[in-house]
């Protein structure tokens, strides 16, 4: 078995369960994002993969070897910390060469590798600079180069880009993804920024309350959320009450609609509809009746807020398909079964 495999991994701090029975399989060379709100256990999970915390239950295997109890320094991994943790007493070159020096590599080999890595992160000739003289983005790159110096089996990043400003962060996301694809290194990133996860990951792992709620490709996470938490956490969504009667007829917001299969074993559920999938149509004709309460025209997109059955629904459209509606006007909402997801309540 290759890759990284987590089985029933659990971490308890006293009576508090930070990570609960996590099963995850990460294929070699893939890019996985652990995504979730703060306190969801994603950082604890990463620290267990790194060996900085030991799990209280379950096992972690890397390339077929059980590493659950292996100390961090024997795991052959590279990690970038949220604080970056660059060593302030060492130069850029010495920081990058640290893992090689610890392993007793000779000076020439160290220098050669440092030059290679500095070229890779587009900072050639920076070896003798002090880390305190670098900009945020440069420090970021140095931390990445330092983690990659030994060509580790596993590359871990804990909220790596959170200290950068928005523009630089977006640029670094693309750069990090391209670097990962070029090196083909198995990478796990912890983030609370869903845009970041969507940009970089092959697989997004959404966590909440110490559990994995869904692990899938970014598009699937967005299009086919597993539950209402994932639907709500990833992007914007309308969560509408969904009911089926004894005859199997589905109803949303009190209006019967066609084309939706009833839920297995339950008559009540939630319907997740992305704002861009909400169609505003003239009232009547089987559409769900709604009243326009507010229109926000952002130039690039137009958000129409409507009220239906006592609940707010947001519809987003592009200027090309600008809905000709006024505040106070009664309209109809049409939902397409192909783009809506029925979730257990």
């Amino acid at each position, binding site marked *: 078995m290759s890759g990284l495999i987590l089985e029933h991994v659990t971490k308890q701090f006293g009576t508090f369960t930070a990570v609960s029975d996590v099963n995850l399989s990460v294929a070699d060379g893939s890019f996985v994002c652990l995504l979730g709100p703060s306190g969801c256990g994603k950082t604890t999970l990463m620290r267990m993969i790194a060996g*900085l915390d030991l799990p209280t239950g379950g096992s972690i295997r890397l390339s077929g070897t059980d590493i659950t109890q292996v100390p961090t320094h024997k795991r052959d991994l590279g*990690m970038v910390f949220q604080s970056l*943790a660059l060593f302030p007493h060492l130069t850029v070159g010495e920081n990058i060469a640290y893992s090689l020096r*610890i392993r007793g590599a000779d000076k020439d080999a160290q220098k050669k590798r440092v030059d290679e890595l500095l070229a890779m992160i587009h900072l050639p000739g920076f070896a003798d600079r002090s880390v305190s003289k670098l900009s945020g983005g440069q420090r970021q790159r140095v931390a990445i180069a*330092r983690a990659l110096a030994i060509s580790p089996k596993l590359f871990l990043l804990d909220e790596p880009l959170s200290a950068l400003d928005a523009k630089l962060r977006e640029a670094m996301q693309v750069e990090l993804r391209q670097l990962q694809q070029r090196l083909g290194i198995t990478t796990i990133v912890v983030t609370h920024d869903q845009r970041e996860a969507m940009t970089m990951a092959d697989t997004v792992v959404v966590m909440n309350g110490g559990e994995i709620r869904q692990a899938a490709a970014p598009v699937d996470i967005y299009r086919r959320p597993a539950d209402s938490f994932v639907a709500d956490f990833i992007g914007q969504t309308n969560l509408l009450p969904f009911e089926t009667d004894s005859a199997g007829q589905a109803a949303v917001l009190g209006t019967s609609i066609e084309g939706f299969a009833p839920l297995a074993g339950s008559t009540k559920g939630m319907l997740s509809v992305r704002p861009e999938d909400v169609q505003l149509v003239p009232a009547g004709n089987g559409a769900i009746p709604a009243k326009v309460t507010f229109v926000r025209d952002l130039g690039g997109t137009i958000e129409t807020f409507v009220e239906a059955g006592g609940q707010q629904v947001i519809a987003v459209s592009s200027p090309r398909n600008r809905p000709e509606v006024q505040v106070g006007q009664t309209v109809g909402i049409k939902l397409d079964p192909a783009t809506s997801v029925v979730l257990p309540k």
Partner: protein
Amino acid sequence: MRREPPQRLGDYGPLFFPAGMLTLFFVVPFATMIAVSFFQREQGGFYTPAFVLDNYARFLSLFFGKVLGFSLFLAVAVAIACVVVGVPFTYLLARSARKMQIAWLVALLSILSLSEVMIGFAWSTLFSRTAGITNLFVWLGLMSQAQALTPSFGAVMTAMTYQAFPYTVLVLYPALVRLDPTLAEAARTLGASPVKAFFTVVVPALRNTILATLIMVFIFALGSYLLPQLLGRPQHWTLSVLITDQAIYQSNMPFAAAMAVFLVLVSLALVGLAVYAGQQKEAK
């Protein structure tokens, strides 16, 4: 915030009080001592104003040279012992549970409330043949016969290190608490064992704090005159012991003053050298 130099005399106002206190309680006594060091000693414990170099000349002998050398050696040894024990101790303390930290800090602070005399007599009892720790070793079967561990150099070192240790921890503690814990973790992910991470990352990152601690303990230990007398042999007496002896028992104020001035100059020179060496290494 305004960041310009003071313009009028009034702007220096806040400095007047501390400057006055410093002059009254430090500059004046120190100047008096320097002046006395050049005075002529009279038989019977008096001295008359003069400008003679006899006191300094008398000091330049092999005997006093040796005492000065030993004093500096002892102070450096105590400083190093305190840092060697204190840095790992404080590192672990700063990472332990809050309750544990408070308990230790209170215990260490309570050592500060003990006078040097009490510390000296406590250790001399502990190191004695009749009531000392060797009796415990005999009882445990580690030694065949109880013996006195004092007077000896080891006893002086132990007591002085014990006395200076709380200061060491209190100076190191804030720096170690502020130290980013991910530095050591990063070193571990890069292949360093926890011990290696401590020596290659934590200690170098704390270089300036450690240097400041060394200097502080060094100066503190240089002034110790009671413990060497209580726990050491005459060859373990420091210059401070001799200064006390001259000033109080021999009533030779000018000579005592000359030795004190010399001790201050030598220690200032050493501290300056240490700071200079530290800056050179940083500039590298």
